[in-house]
């Protein structure tokens, strides 16, 4: 047991203990004062002040300045150091005469008494938690949760500094500057650039929404994703129908078709249609012909339950393939109506053709069928790809004949034409040729080449989109689904304005076909918005009609009338949607602000948001969209969003009000002496504390609802919420931010010290995997309430393909984001945090290991020991161990021969030497880079012998485990509170330790202790807010 380390731990967390608050709070006890005068001062005068006083006191530490107990309390961090040094007998330094043990003991006990007296007297003091801006990670996560898009706008920000506890989430270290504010402005602008107005609010897109293609990409992707998410695989339906058929054997005798549909995630609307077609009464089945008969036969032949599920699946797939192929061969074909002087892709004509396709997907092409005695159709030569303006149907028809060639399902026995046609009609009515068209090539429907134009209309040289999904709506979607799809298409227009833009391009690029001005344009310069007016649209219609009248073709006339009417109706409807949506965008802005500010808005804030929008429109002359955008930027720039301000509960102005918590039988507000200066936080402030502690992000709706409802402050509710939050994916923030700082791997993704020529295995992928390993390991503990001790002794770890290879573990197959748990990691020299390559690599300066840094990492980061910085004049070790004369361990041993060095190095070198079996990138090794066999034996502090990873673990288990759990608890508390710890936190630390001990060292009880603690739920009130 290293007795000297404990006080040092305390020192580390005591950076800014004493504030005016504590001075005002009370004075020291008379007994301590007496002891100071009688024992302490004389001791100092005799043994210390010789060096530590005068004009240039040693270590700039003037002990003469302390004249009473109060002055010691005020500067206790220094006195913790005094305690440390006296305990370790490092002071007075050895050559000088040593004080008698009894005297030393008196002073030590006095300092300890002051400490425990102070701790108890201020137990639960919330401490000074400063207003602060969000850390970079918190900002990124908050934007992610606010917008739904993980855009990480702070990636160009400078790295946040950490406080003395090692965390970057405190007002002690987070500052603001004009340069940084500029970056905030850019970041907020970037977020604003992702904003997309929808019909009833706004959303954020994964990419910026600045040019037309961005808008189209966004809206199209949503529609295509909707299509792709629909259950259109017939095999799934056949299988679900099969389950219904055999529901009794499957022990679900009462289950309905709808229930099986739900189970199979297929449409409950569509499944009955298929069921009715394939499951026919026997007498009826006998009279069936054609495709229905064939499908019914396949259906009846499906194996009964009890057989091989794969066989069933295979048979259902065969049924599907039969349907799909037959429908492909019987799909209908259309041509554009012909009008002299117009090409086949003149939009009014081409769109007519498209409409025919849209409305005939559940019909079949009678020409596809032939009688057995009919001559077999000759497969024609496939015409060349149609040229500009030519009808594509002839080529498509030829291709179809070729496709149908040899399909005997299209042949009916002589004399049975009607029965077969009826069967095909029923068949096609249930099975459309396609449910929707998601992409087209040019000159639809021949998309034999140039696929990939999503939702495209296939027009030549102008943009244009075409919706074709009637069968999906009719057969599969329920009312809600139809509405959703309609809405997505409306939003496509709303967001990308595609109908108007298509119209405009058509007007300028193609309407010349009717105006006789050549292919392009009807006028010299764009008339701009006027182009979309009803006047222009119907004017052009009339020009077409005049020409069509001369041709006297009723289909063409119908096509033209319909087209321009539809064009006009759509544009007018979009205009209306747009006009009607502005008010809703403003409502959405208010909701956005409340989410961003993490609390309900005040009345003044409501008014302010609307007033600012108005000002931007009126004075700034911004468009509606830009005004909303800038309003969003202003919300993100407001300190109410980008700062953490723990507002006090206005309704709980009196201390110790009813809202306060009862914790473990103690009064919720801190000890009486400080109560007057402490006030409970509002429930919303507590919600934010919770979420920034556990998620490094903003509260979610549920947490805010509990704050709003007022029950968040009940202990059972707050712990239940904490447990919920710890299970949530966002608790990853605790692993990356808290554990990442505690164990110092947070910035490993930028680690560049590895010589990649010597270690080609160290790729960016491996580096990322190394970083991810502790994140996933700790995340697993946190989210499953695992034991803290797994970090030390766990025999398991998590690896992905590249890391498994690095660790010589069995191959993991899959993408880099395939992570698997390896339970026997110890067989490969891994398991727990200590042998993770991230730590072993980070500490290595390239071409050698660094036992010093590795050991230092173990004692400092894992065990919480504080080691002073080395003096500036220490010589560097050679950078390449391959070029050293002596093994590294011998060189270090030499270093320790110097007593000045040994004092510290003896405390940690051994921990690092034990890891010599791991090379500079954490790889297992037998020899160092100089070819010398590595030795892992080490003498741990106190003369304990051990070797290798097991030696380190055994030593910690025997002697230092408490240091680990205590350090972990302290750091977790400091992280949760957003401040350095102080003496008054000691009792809570003790309670946390007790909880750990009582709960098998599991993680969650630590969080429970923190979120119900006085320091977490209250705030110091240093003075009343000024009322200027």
């Amino acid at each position, binding site marked *: 047991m290293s007795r000297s380390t404990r006080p040092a731990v305390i020192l580390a967390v005591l950076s800014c203990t004493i504030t005016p608050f504590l001075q005002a709070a009370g004075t020291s006890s008379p007994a301590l004062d007496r002891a100071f005068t009688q024992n302490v001062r004389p001791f100092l005068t005799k043994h210390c002040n010789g060096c530590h006083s005068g004009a240039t006191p040693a270590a700039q530490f003037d002990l003469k300045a302390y004249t009473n107990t109060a002055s010691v309390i005020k500067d206790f961090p220094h006195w913790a150091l005094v305690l440390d040094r006296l305990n370790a007998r490092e002071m007075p330094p050895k050559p000088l005469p040593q004080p008698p043990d009894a005297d030393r003991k008196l002073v030590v006990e006095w300092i300890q008494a002051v400490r425990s007296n102070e701790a108890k007297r201020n137990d639960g003091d919330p401490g000074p938690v400063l*207003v602060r801006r969000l850390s970079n990670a918190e900002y990124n996560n908050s934007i992610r949760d606010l917008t739904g898009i993980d855009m990480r706008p702070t990636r160009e920000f400078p790295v946040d500094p950490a406080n003395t506890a090692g965390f970057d989430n405190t007002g002690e270290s987070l500052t603001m500057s004009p340069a940084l504010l500029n970056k905030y402005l850019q970041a907020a602008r970037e977020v604003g650039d992702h904003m997309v107005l929808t019909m009833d609010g706004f959303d954020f897109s994964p990419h910026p929404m600045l040019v037309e293609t961005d808008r189209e990409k966004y809206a199209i992707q949503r529609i295509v994703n909707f299509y792709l998410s629909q259950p259109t695989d017939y095999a799934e339906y056949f299988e679900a129908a099969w389950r219904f058929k055999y529901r009794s054997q499957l022990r679900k005798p009462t289950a309905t078709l709808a229930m099986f549909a739900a189970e199979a995630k297929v449409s409950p609307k569509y499944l009955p249609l298929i069921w009715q077609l394939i499951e026919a009464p026997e007498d009826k089945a006998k009279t069936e012909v054609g495709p229905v008969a064939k499908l019914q036969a396949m259906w009846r032949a499906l194996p009964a339950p009890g057989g091989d599920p794969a066989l069933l699946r295979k048979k259902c797939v065969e049924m599907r393939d039969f349907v799909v192929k037959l429908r492909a061969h019987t799909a209908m074909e259309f041509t554009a109506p012909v009008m002299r002087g117009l090409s086949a892709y003149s939009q009014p004509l081409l769109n007519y053709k498209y409409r025919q396709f849209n409305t005939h997907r559940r019909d079949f092409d009678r020409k596809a069928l032939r009688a057995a005695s009919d001559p077999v159709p000759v497969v024609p030569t496939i015409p060349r790809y149609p040229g500009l303006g030519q009808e594509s149907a002839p080529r498509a028809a030829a291709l179809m004949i070729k496709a149908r060639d040899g399909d005997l399902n299209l042949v009916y026995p002589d004399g049975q034409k009607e029965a077969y046609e009826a069967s095909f009609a029923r068949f096609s009515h249930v099975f459309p040729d396609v449910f929707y068209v998601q992409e087209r090539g040019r000159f639809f429907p021949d998309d034999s080449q140039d696929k990939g134009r999503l939702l495209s209309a296939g027009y030549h040289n102008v943009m244009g989109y075409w919706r074709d999904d009637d069968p999906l709506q009719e057969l599969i979607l329920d009312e809600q689904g139809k509405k959703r799809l309609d809405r997505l298409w409306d939003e496509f227009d709303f967001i990308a304005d595609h109908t108007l833009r298509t119209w405009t391009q058509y007007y300028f690029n193609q309407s010349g076909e009717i105006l006789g001005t050549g292919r392009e344009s009807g006028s010299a310069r764009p008339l701009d918005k006027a182009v979309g007016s009803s006047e222009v649209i119907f004017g052009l219609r009339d020009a077409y009609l005049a020409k069509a009248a001369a041709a006297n073709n009723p289909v063409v006339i119908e096509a033209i009338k319909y087209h321009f009417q539809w064009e006009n109706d759509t544009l007018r409807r979009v205009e209306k949607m747009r006009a009607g949506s502005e008010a809703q965008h403003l409502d959405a802005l208010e909701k956005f602000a409340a989410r961003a500010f993490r609390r309900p808005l005040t009345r003044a804030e409501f008014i302010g948001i609307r007033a600012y929008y108005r000002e931007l429109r009126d004075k700034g002359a911004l468009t509606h969209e830009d005004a909303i955008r800038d309003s969003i930027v202003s919300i993100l720039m407001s300190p109410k969003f980008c700062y953490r301000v723990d507002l006090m509960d206005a309704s709980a102005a009196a201390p110790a009000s009813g809202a306060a918590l009862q914790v473990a039988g103690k009064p919720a507000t801190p000890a009486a002496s400080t109560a007057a200066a402490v006030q409970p936080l509002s429930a919303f402030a507590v919600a934010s504390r919770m979420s920034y502690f556990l998620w490094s992000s903003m509260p979610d709706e549920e947490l805010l609802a509990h704050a709003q409802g007022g029950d968040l402050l009940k202990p059972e509710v707050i712990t239940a919420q904490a447990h919920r939050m710890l299970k949530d994916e966002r608790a990853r923030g605790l692993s990356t931010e808290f554990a990442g700082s505690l164990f110092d791997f947070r910035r490993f993704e930028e680690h560049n010290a590895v010589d990649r020529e010597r270690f080609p295995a160290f790729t960016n992928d491996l580096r990322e995997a190394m970083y991810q390993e502790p994140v996933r390991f700790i995340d697993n503990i946190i989210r499953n309430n695992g034991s803290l001790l797994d970090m030390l002794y766990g025999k398991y770890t998590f690896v992905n393909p590249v890391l498994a290879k690095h660790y010589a573990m069995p191959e993991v197959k899959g993408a880099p984001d395939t992570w698997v748990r390896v339970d026997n990691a110890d067989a490969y020299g891994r398991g727990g945090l200590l042998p993770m390559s991230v730590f072993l690599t980070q500490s290595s300066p390239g071409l050698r290991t660094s036992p010093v840094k590795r050991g230092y990492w173990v004692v400092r980061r894992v065990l919480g020991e504080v080691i002073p910085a080395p003096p500036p004049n220490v010589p560097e070790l050679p950078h390449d161990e391959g070029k050293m004369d002596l093994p590294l361990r011998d060189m270090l041993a030499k270093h320790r021969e110097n007593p000045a060095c040994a004092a510290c190095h003896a405390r940690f070198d051994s921990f690092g030497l034990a890891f010599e079996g791991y090379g500079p990138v954490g790889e297992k090794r037998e020899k160092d880079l100089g070819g010398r066999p590595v030795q892992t034996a080490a003498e741990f502090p106190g003369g304990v012998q051990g070797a290798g990873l097991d030696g380190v673990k055994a030593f910690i288990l025997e002697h230092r485990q408490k240091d680990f759990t205590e350090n972990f608890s302290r750091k977790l508390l400091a992280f949760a509170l957003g401040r350095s710890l102080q003496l008054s936190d000691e009792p809570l630390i003790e309670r946390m330790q007790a909880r750990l001990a009582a709960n098998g060292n599991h993680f969650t009880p630590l969080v429970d202790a923190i979120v119900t603690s006085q320091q977490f739920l209250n705030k110091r009130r240093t003075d009343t807010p000024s009322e200027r």
Partner: protein
Amino acid sequence: MPNQTPKSAYRISRRTVLRGAGVTMALPWLESLPAFADATTPAALPKRFAVLFMGNGVNEDHWDAQGSGAEMTLSKTLSPLEPLKGKINVIHGLFHKRATGQGIHPGQTGSLLNGSMIQKGAIIKAGVSVDQMIANKVGQDTPQASMVLACEQPMTGYHESNFSMAYSSHISWQSPDSPVPNEVYPSLAWDSLFENRGSLRNMSILDRVRGDAEALNKKIASSDKAKLDEYLTSVREVENRVDGMRKSKDTADEVAKQNNRPVYTMDRPANGLPEDFREHTKLMCDIIAIAFQTDKTRVATLLLARDLSALYYPFLEMRDGHHAASHNNNSDGYERVARFHLSQLAYLATKLDAMPEGNGTVLDNSCLMFMSNMWIGRKHDNSRLPLVMAGGLGGTLKTGRTLDFIKAGDENRKMSSLYMSIMDRMGVKVDRFGDAEAPLVGI
């Protein structure tokens, strides 16, 4: 930063480019103009880069130049450059190999300024264009990183070759996924420069959040005020800087006046699109000229007529639209179209040449490029591209030459190599660009 991911090159928000951010602003160069005007070393003067683009090629029968210096002879289409002969280079034979055999139009245009292999189908992928590469570097020294202007609205959707029409509508790309938005309205382009709309908007936002912070300040404990003061001070500081930027136009005019130098002035163009296309192109050139002179930006692209242009030229007595006419590109009419567009280069170059700077003119410190995506429109031939450059780029580019790379071999006539040469001279060092791994030999 070591090991920078390739992505970081595009990390500047496109709106930053568009709006000039108005925030990350160094001191405008003009405030130190007097010292500058006396400077004798051209290296101290800023270098500018601009591209003027017309789509669909030229009339190859009338596009030629031979000889150098005073002996240089210019063909009909290039004749508007006659007075500037000593300050131009006519370059024959450069091309993008990757843009050949890819299908016509967008496939020939998407890589024009970036040299990349562009992608067909639903996903747009090109590369960062040379102007934006330069803007990312030198743009930090000016209020606006670059200006991306156009005289014709973009199209989207697909071309028959299955390339997105976006490739036909934009020449400036800030990231491979998305082009820089074109500014088509002269009034808005002017505003973004001189009203500094971006700045105005940021000012307004800062003003608003300052109000927010001050209100908050009243509700918090005094110990917290210090932290919030830090924020407030930063806001005020940035506001002051932004305000300073806004005033720089006035300062610039003032400084110039005191130096008895004619500063080109220009009134704000009217809202909306000019009815007359000639007026439109002229205004856009004027804006580039004044932006270059006042060092508001050093990088500009102007898309005069896009690929597949639907522009109409009644003033050239043309009946067909631009694209239709280009299918008959050796007609007299199409020659007039090409000459009209080329005359915009002559107009802009002349304008810049009338602006003294150091011992020379702004043109001498600029590199203007006039180019098209094709050589012969009726054949959609882009095996060589028409190219004229104007300006000496601060003494780094010899002018008054005709350079012929037609017979140099494909490896030695890469347009991307020329871009590397220009980037190199503007302080942008890259190992490769597009299909080029070295600057152009002989430029």
